[in-house]
C-alpha cells in the first residue's frame, strides 16, 4: 500500500480521536453545569419556603413571649421541627421533617423533607422536597448552639444540602458526579427576640 495513504489514515485517525475527545469534554462540562444549576434551583425553592416559615414562628399566638418557646417542638432530634404560627388569620401547626429515603430516585443518599401544615379545621397540606441533609440547631441568648429549644432560644441555625436527581459518569473513574448545593443560615424569628 502507498505510504502516503497509510500516513494520511494515521494522521486522520489521530485528528478524529482528538475531535471526539473534545466533543466528549464539552458535553461533559455542559452537563456538569446543568446539574449544578439544577441542584441550586432545588435549593432556592426550598430555602424560600423554609425561611418564610421559620421567620414566622410563634406569630399570632395569644401571648407571643410565652408561647414562642412552647410553640417550637424539636421532636427530639435535629432533623425535625414543629411550630405554631398564624396563616391567613388562623393558627396553624407546621412540621418540617425528614420522612425517610426518597424512593423516587435511585440515589442512596436522597431523603424526603416534608413540610406539613395543619390548620385548626384539621386540613393538612403536604409539600415534599428532596434533600441530601437537613439539620437544625438552636441558638440561645448567649450565642451557644444547642440541640433542643428552651426558654432562652433566640435563633435557629439551619443547614441544608441538595443534589441533582441525576448524575453523570466521571471521566476516568467509576464514580458518578452529582450537582451539589449547600445552604446554611441562622434565622432569628422576631417573636423569640421580643423581651
Amino acid at each position: 500500500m502507498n505510504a502516503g495513504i497509510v500516513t494520511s489514515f494515521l494522521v486522520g485517525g489521530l485528528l478524529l480521536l482528538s475531535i471526539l475527545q473534545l466533543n466528549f469534554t464539552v458535553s461533559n462540562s455542559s452537563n456538569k453545569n446543568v446539574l449544578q444549576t439544577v441542584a441550586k434551583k432545588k435549593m432556592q425553592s426550598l430555602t424560600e419556603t423554609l425561611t418564610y416559615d421559620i421567620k414566622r414562628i410563634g406569630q399570632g399566638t395569644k401571648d407571643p413571649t410565652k408561647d414562642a418557646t412552647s410553640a417550637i417542638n424539636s421532636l427530639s432530634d435535629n432533623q425535625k421541627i414543629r411550630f405554631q404560627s398564624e396563616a391567613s388569620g388562623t393558627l396553624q401547626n407546621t412540621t418540617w421533617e425528614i420522612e425517610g429515603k426518597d424512593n423516587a430516585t435511585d440515589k442512596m443518599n436522597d431523603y424526603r423533607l416534608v413540610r406539613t401544615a395543619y390548620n385548626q379545621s384539621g386540613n393538612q397540606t403536604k409539600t415534599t422536597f428532596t434533600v441530601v441533609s437537613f439539620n437544625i440547631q438552636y441558638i440561645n441568648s448567649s450565642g451557644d448552639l444547642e440541640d433542643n429549644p428552651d426558654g432562652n432560644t433566640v435563633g435557629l441555625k439551619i443547614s441544608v444540602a441538595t443534589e441533582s436527581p441525576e448524575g453523570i459518569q466521571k471521566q476516568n473513574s467509576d464514580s458518578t458526579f452529582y450537582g451539589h448545593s449547600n445552604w446554611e443560615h441562622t434565622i432569628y424569628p422576631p417573636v423569640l427576640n421580643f423581651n
Partner: protein
Amino acid sequence: MNDYSDLVYLISAMVLFSLLTLNVSRTLVLNSKDLAENEVEYQGVTVAQSIIDEAKWKNKGDFIDLDGNSDKENIEGVDYNFELEVDPINVEGTDGDDYELTVSVGSNYFNSEEDYPIKLTYIRSF
C-alpha cells in the same frame, strides 16, 4: 513540491485545531469557575444576612459595640471573613439616634480585587 504543500496544509490545520481546543477548554474552565464563585457568593450573602438578623435584636450598647468586630466562619470547607462597621447617621424625619451597620464579607474564593466584595447595610433607630 506537491508533498510539501500537503504537509503545510496539515500543520496549519492542526495548529488551528489546537487553538480551537485551547479556547474551548479555557471557556469551560471559566464557566466552572463562575459557577463555583456564584455558589460561594450566595452563601456569603447568607452569612451577612444572618449577622444583620442577629443585630436587629441587640440593645443600643451591644449594637454600637459591634463596630470593628471581625471574625471568620467556615461553611462546608469555605472560609468567609467578615468585618462589621457601625456609623452614626442622621435619617431625616426621625427623632431617635440612627446607626448604620455595614457587614462586609470576603472569601479567598472570590475573584475580586477587594478584600470584602459583599457589603450589606442595615439602618437602625433607637
